[in-house]
């Protein structure tokens, strides 16, 4: 695909000199955030931080396939929904054990990813965007019609998951650090994948699938596995989101949510992984502050996104590295 080329050229310079420092800074800030509770009510701060990190997990997972595989999924919110509904449905039947609900969330996501990926990956470019959107809509409507589990209105989760009888998600501070650990795990897993032989094949397939096939790689299988990994990580995000919100609803998997995930990846800087974390944080923080200021915050936020596209190539990460380069020069 000739389309894929510009993504790589945009991302490459940022990776070169920010590969260690920026992730270190991000995780340092996130780890220290609860200590800043003097500045704002602690529960508010923890809830906001938890929410940011949950969506950051999903955004990093999406960046893995968009940034390194040029597989633009417009239906990734479906996986968040699957993970969340696994928690909700099990809880509705009185099962709150993490050792059951987390594997269920992951397995459901992986199975859905394998089934839909097997079909979607036969298409390319725009058609891939649209077919993943179609599958996302299917799951959305399925959830909307699950009358026994709340249908359109969603499902309240009576109590959060427990680990072998231990209510580990109960304390907001503990929950915060568990989500923090999950984000760190996701980030370093994706980073290891990108650096591995598997990741190189994925990148190669993005640049030139024909050449990779000629070299003897079955590109389709690599892409399918990457899609499944990305789906599973979004399932994890959904699992955490359900536990943090005590609630699941079809709105978690609306196409607007899938669009938001793409925007988070782009806003931060595609193809860097840590850019996705920055993007998720920036998106949710800007939305939070603008919405406190005015009910019509999207009138400001919309044009802001347009301006970022027009002038900030490579997202916030690209912008920072441009500034850094100018200062060095």
């Amino acid at each position, binding site marked *: 695909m000739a389309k894929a080329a510009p993504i790589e050229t945009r991302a490459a310079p940022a990776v070169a000199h920010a590969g260690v420092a920026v992730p270190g800074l991000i995780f340092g800030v996130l780890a220290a955030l609860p200590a800043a509770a003097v500045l704002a009510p602690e529960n508010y701060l923890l809830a906001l931080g938890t929410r940011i990190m949950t969506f950051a997990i999903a955004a990093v997972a999406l960046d893995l396939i968009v940034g390194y595989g040029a597989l*633009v999924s417009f239906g990734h919110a479906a996986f968040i929904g699957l993970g969340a509904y696994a928690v909700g449905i099990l809880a509705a039947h009185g099962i709150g054990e993490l050792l059951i609900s987390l594997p269920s969330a992951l397995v459901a996501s992986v199975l859905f990813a394998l089934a839909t990926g097997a079909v979607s990956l036969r298409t*390319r470019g725009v058609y891939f*965007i*649209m077919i993943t959107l179609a599958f996302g809509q299917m799951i959305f409507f399925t959830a909307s*019609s699950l009358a026994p589990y709340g249908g359109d209105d969603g499902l309240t989760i009576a109590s959060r998951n427990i680990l072998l009888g231990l209510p580990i998600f109960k304390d907001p501070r503990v929950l915060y650090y568990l989500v923090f650990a999950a984000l760190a795990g996701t980030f370093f897993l994706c980073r290891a994948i990108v650096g591995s032989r598997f990741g190189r094949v994925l990148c190669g397939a993005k640049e030139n699938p024909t050449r990779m096939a000629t070299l003897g790689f079955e590109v389709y299988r690599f892409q399918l596995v990457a899609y499944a990994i990305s789906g599973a990580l979004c399932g994890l995000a959904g699992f955490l989101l359900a536990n943090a919100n005590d609630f699941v609803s079809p709105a978690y998997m609306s196409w607007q949510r899938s669009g938001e995930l793409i925007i988070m990846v*782009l*806003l931060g800087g595609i193809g860097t992984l840590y850019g996705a974390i920055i993007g998720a944080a920036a998106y949710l923080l800007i939305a939070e502050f603008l919405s406190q200021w005015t009910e019509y915050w999207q009138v400001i936020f919309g044009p802001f*996104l347009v301006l970022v596209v027009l002038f900030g190539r490579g997202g916030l990460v690209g912008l920072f590295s441009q500034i850094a380069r100018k200062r060095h020069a």
Partner: protein
Amino acid sequence: MSSLVSIQILNGLQLGVLLFLIAAGLTLVFGVMDFINLAHGVQYMLGAYLAVTFYGFTGSFLIALVLALVATLAFALALEVLVFRQLYARDHLDHVMATFGIILFVDQGVKLVWGAAPLSLPVPELFSGSVTMMGGLLYPVWRLVIIGSGLAVAVGLYVLVGHMRVGMLVRAGATNAPLVSALGINISRLFMLVFGFGAMLAGFAGVMIAPILSVEPGMGDAILILAFVVIVIGGIGSIRGAFVAALMIGLVDTLGRSFAVDVLRLFMGPSPARTVGPALASMLIYVLMAVVLTLRPAGLFPAAGR
């Protein structure tokens, strides 16, 4: 039963031509400029809102229609010049992000200007009655007017795109835009023309549907997704594909919603059928799309050279 089916088929056709009006512009913009315009649904919504406002000023549906079309055209051209023109050369992700931002802006802006409460537009006096169908059921004339005007636009587009010079340029642009430009055609003016015309068609769809739907913020988003399904099934860049797929989607969706529960009751008890039916009905078009793309990865009528 048979008259009920025929009414639902008419409703399906009505949804189909509406989708065609929106999808026609979308597929041209997509095909000629390779541009993903998520904000196309915004034009449909604006068409409806502007018609309500202009009707309030003038009291004439026809004048409101004309003014709304002119206004949507102006809005589309402004967007094209200010934003989209800079993005044609970028990749699809940039298109998604920019047009997503425009959706947020316009959806919220509409709330700011017209309020969040749904508005309505009366059916024009001349077409406000109903016709008696076989079996004694009544069918509103306005829906027939929508079907008729949609088909008229389809014929007009067929002549315009298939048999006129400007249409030839559009088709050539969809196949190979750089080459058309190299042959001395002002491609950016062609792009602007296609974009404005497509947006105006979406605005037209919004005006026509306003008398039978409630005019509310976000009304363009749901229909936009359907329009995308249409152009992907039809093959991006193909007007003919958009027409066939739009009628297909309109009929499948409408008939599915009306009869899914009844059909399922043949296989299962009434209670599970009532649960599964609506879910299956809303999924049906996406299943159709997945099947079509599995069999024909570039849609039913892929434009040549893609």
